């Protein structure tokens, strides 16, 4: 009588589960592809942006620096060579002027002797012609320094002197009369002319000597300036280069730290040019992508391990409904003739119910084991905890551990990834089971946290507690106290990662001999329930 109703009731949840599963699986395939595509697209974008910058490599900067130094040195060397040439030129000129002066002075000495003793004035003429020759043969040199006017004046002075001496000679030895008088006048003229010539040459020499000193001191200053300038150039270049390289290294250090802390934002260009570090950025981006993929695998494999410890239990748990179906089925066949309709209906109802029970067990497990990315949704933490406890119920039963669950009514929801959070809770519960003795208790509570807008999940065991000296390292990756092959040492470290991503915290309080409390705080969702992100999951196989 009540049987048809039963059947219907039994069927309903069945269909629901199916529908739910189909839905999630559908979204799953797409979601996984989407997000992976998205990441690949981000990567491609970052790559393009990085490569689009104009190139200015460190190598180019080094080359440029060296080229600059070389160019500067070259200019300075040319300058120095030029001043050396100038000095040489001037020294030569001075020599010429000196020779000229010597000749003139010699001529004047003859001239003086002639006036005093009337001796060989003709020899003076020789000196004059040698002076003339000197001027003549160094004409260009002299011209280049003194200019034409001075040269011509010197030349004309010399000529005039020669003329005067010749006139003096023509007058002969007459020392009296009008001739003597003329001679007197001529003598003065010769003297004056000689004087002029010497003073002109001496002046010229003095001027040139001063110029020479100036050139030499300029060359000396040039040396010092050059050194200073070289130092400045090299310092500036080294500074720029070093800052550029070191800044980048510093930047990559922060990248490394950022990546290590689990932030997998890709590197995007920050500078206006592209260099070797751009290549590095590309490589790092690639690495980030790979690490991400690998981490996903790791999380997945860790999850599967957790599932593994559960499946052993679940497989066995399945044996009960299957056994019920088997026994009922066999008895149905055996006693078909002798049973009435009502009895048969009851038997088949049992079979359907047990099949559903088996399905629910598997669905729960599959739900957890399914590969997932992030599927963000507003979540009822209490509901999630109940599911998770159900998942672990076998382990609990086998270890004869009693679990108490309590939650405050009407808790706000949290925004997050239900699979990841369930993994964290499962992890904590399994850890608590491992820490408890047979017959022990575990308390799981969810309540508003002390801080506003947060809720806290507490998983409390009354087991051995965590020794103080290892309390600091329990969240470290690969840290485990379980024997080899039993634990990966990743559970807590990954749990922490997951909770941090959700904007929450895991804290531990442990007293040796009294037990351990893990507290997970999560921010509550502040906006109305709405699924914000496309699901991203794919079925396990």
């Amino acid at each position, binding site marked *: 009588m009540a049987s048809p109703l039963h059947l219907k009731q039994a069927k309903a949840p069945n269909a629901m589960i199916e529908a739910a599963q189909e839905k999630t699986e559908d979204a799953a395939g797409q979601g996984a592809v989407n997000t992976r595509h998205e990441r690949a697209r981000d990567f491609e974008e970052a790559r393009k942006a990085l490569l689009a910058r104009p190139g200015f490599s460190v190598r180019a900067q080094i080359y440029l620096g060296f080229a600059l130094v070389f160019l500067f040195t070259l200019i300075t060397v040319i300058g120095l060579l030029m001043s050396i040439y100038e000095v040489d030129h001037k020294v030569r000129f001075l020599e010429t002027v000196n020779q000229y002066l010597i000749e003139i002075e010699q001529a004047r000495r003859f001239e003086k002797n002639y006036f005093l003793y009337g001796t060989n004035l003709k020899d003076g003429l020789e000196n004059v012609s040698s002076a003339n020759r000197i001027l003549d043969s160094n004409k260009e040199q002299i011209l280049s320094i003194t200019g034409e006017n001075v040269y011509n004046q010197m030349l004309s002075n010399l000529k005039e002197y020669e003329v005067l001496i010749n006139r003096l000679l023509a007058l002969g030895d007459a020392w009296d009369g009008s001739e003597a008088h003329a001679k007197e006048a001529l003598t003065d003229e010769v003297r004056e002319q000689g004087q002029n010539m010497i003073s002109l040459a001496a002046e010229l020499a003095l001027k040139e000597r001063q110029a020479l000193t100036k050139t030499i001191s300029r060359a000396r200053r040039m040396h010092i300036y050059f050194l200073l300038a070289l130092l400045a150039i090299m310092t500036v270049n080294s500074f720029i280069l070093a800052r550029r390289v070191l800044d980048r290294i510093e930047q990559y250090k922060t990248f490394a730290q950022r990546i290590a802390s689990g932030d997998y934002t890709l590197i995007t260009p920050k500078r206006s040019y592209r260099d070797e570090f751009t290549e590095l950025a590309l490589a790092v981006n690639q690495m980030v992508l790979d690490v991400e993929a690998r981490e996903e695998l790791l999380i997945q494999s860790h999850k599967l391990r957790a599932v593994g410890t559960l499946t052993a239990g679940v497989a*066995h*748990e*399945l*044996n*009960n409904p*299957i*056994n*019920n*179906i*088997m*026994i*009922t089925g*066999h*008895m149905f066949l*055996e*006693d078909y003739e002798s049973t009435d309709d009502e009895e048969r209906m009851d*038997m088949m109802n*049992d079979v359907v119910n*047990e099949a559903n029970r088996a399905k629910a067990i598997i669905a729960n497990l599959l739900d957890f084991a399914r590969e997932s990315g992030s599927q963000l949704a507003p979540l009822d933490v209490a509901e999630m905890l109940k599911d998770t406890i159900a998942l672990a119920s076998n382990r609990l*039963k*086998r270890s*004869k551990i009693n679990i108490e669950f309590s939650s405050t009514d009407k808790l706000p929801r949290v925004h997050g990834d239900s699979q990841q959070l369930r993994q964290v809770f499962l992890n904590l519960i399994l850890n608590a089971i491992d820490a408890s003795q047979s017959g022990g208790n575990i308390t799981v509570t969810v309540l508003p946290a002390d801080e506003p807008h947060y809720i806290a999940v507490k998983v409390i065991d009354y087991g051995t507690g965590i020794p103080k000296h290892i309390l600091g390292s329990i969240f470290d990756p690969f840290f485990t106290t379980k024997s080899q092959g039993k634990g990966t040492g990743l559970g807590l470290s990954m749990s922490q990662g997951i909770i941090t991503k959700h904007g929450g915290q895991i804290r531990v309080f442990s007293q040796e001999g009294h037990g351990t409390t893990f507290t997970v705080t999560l921010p509550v969702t502040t906006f109305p329930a709405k699924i914000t992100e496309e699901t991203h999951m794919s079925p396990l196989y």
Partner: protein
Amino acid sequence: MSNLDVLLLDDEPIVGKRLKPALAKVGCEVEVFQNPVEALKRIDEKFFDVVVTDISMAEVDGMQVLEHVVAKNNATKVIMITGFAMMSLAREAMEKGAFDFIAKPFKPDDLRAIIARAAEALGKPIAFEAGESA
């Protein structure tokens, strides 16, 4: 031919519900329990030829039932049924004096065959030809 007194203990209600008539058909007087504590109480009151017990149960598990039965009367044949069959558990059960150990899921005939062997060993054969099933 006297009836064989069988106590069947499993926290799964369907096991008792279906196996009671199945065993009755081969001449067993079956008492079914879902609660191990009540079962133990009954065992203290009455002698059973055969005790069939599940292993994983809350409060008291099948091993404890086995120990209790063996301590009380060595003649009772204890048959363990479990969904958690594994070598260590099987050996433990045998060491503690179980007559046989069978993994879930099993067919009613599997259990009948074992009970028939137990009855044979007790000298109270029942109407079941063993060997017709695996």
